[in-house]
């Protein structure tokens, strides 16, 4: 799942630095993820994983790292195919 998150992040995150420098627990906001880009990222994740984020998950923290995104996706029923 984290590989797919990275793919989405690459196209929708508008990050300055390359994704290689970003670990699964790196702070995406510190890497330049703006609030505007967060919305794009959210929409792209919904499209890629065919899910909808409920309002309670729509906050900065949900998109603060690849780990956090994976956790949120798991919470709304996305199964981790690698596990």
């Amino acid at each position: 799942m984290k590989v797919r998150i990275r793919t989405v992040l690459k196209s929708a995150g508008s990050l300055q630095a390359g994704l290689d420098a970003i670990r699964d627990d790196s702070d995406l906001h510190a890497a330049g993820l703006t609030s505007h880009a967060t919305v794009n990222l959210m929409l792209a994740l919904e499209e890629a994983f065919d899910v909808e984020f409920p309002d309670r998950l729509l906050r900065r923290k949900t998109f603060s790292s690849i780990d956090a995104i994976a956790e949120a996706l798991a919470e709304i029923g996305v199964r981790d195919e690698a596990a």
Partner: protein
Amino acid sequence: MTPWLAAARAVGVEIAGRHADDVDARGRFPAEALSALKERALLGLLVPASEGGPGAGIADVVVICHELGRHCASTAMIYAMHQIQVACLVRHAGGNPWLRAFIRRLASEQLLLASATSEAGVGGDVRSSVCALDERRGRFALTKQAPVISYAEPCDAILVTARRTPQSPPSDQMLAVVLRADADLQAREVWNTLGMRGTCSNGYRLAAEGEIAQILQVPYADISAQTMLPTSHLVWSALWLGIAGEALSRARAFVRAEAKRKPGVPPIGAARLAEAMGELQSMKGELLACLRQYEAAAGSGDALSALPFALAMNNLKILSSQKVVSIVGQAMLICGLEGYRSDSPFSIGRLLRDAHSAVVMVNNDRIVANNAGLALALRDDPELLA
């Protein structure tokens, strides 16, 4: 009425209101009103009891901003901007001993805090910075081209946003407390504006140094979302409501005088007055609803960071900033030439000019653009009382 509001009303009626026209005409700092607010210990209201303050809440500040807004909008805006900074400090200082000691001083010495978030190069996009904190041997240095810092000269400290490090992206910001005594302010743009002239919001090149401990440890993104944005929109909307209410008081006095002059003939402005009072009512209702929403969320960082909350607070700002202009405009129509004159008791000019600052003070188009993003993300909430 709380003793704080009573004190603020006395300052408003006896001091701020008396000097308001002079402050406006000369574009000068309302020094008398700010001294009076200091003397009555109204600057440190939000400081909790554990730090030597009275521990008042945001509602206490909101009612004072509304009161001051009726008498002198510049005084009210200075008071409001100061309290926004205090709210950020009190909420986000954490255990940092330097900041704790500073908050104590704030209460005991009634320090006045200013803000430098806007920056040349990013315009009003206060969520990105060009300048950065340069850390060396436990100290930081920063240089910011600030197009507007209200009352920078008479303040005691300025809260400045900057990138975390010179390598950080523009959105990775921190907030630092810069003491006025440590700040080198080189004057740039002079504040010569349509309204809010007493806020003395001149432009400067700000250069400063300080201890690392003067930097709040929480990312500015959280401070902004949880405290700076919601409290700004609440206190600003309150003082704009005060301006609108004052305009309608003048309009009402005018209509009454008409009614007395020609008994039995309904004054022509009465219907318009009634309509404008409806607008004022909805402006007030929106403010109070958002105030309650803020108070309900205040205990939880998560609730304050939620997108529906941000959307509601942004809408409060947009709605209030439009309504104040519309209501004051109605008052002008009602008072007619007497309202248009600058020397009549029904004069509306200063109120109208001050009101027009609301839509540009963080441009509404910018806030609408942010809301457009939020609107894409949010789901419908069909439950009325949820």
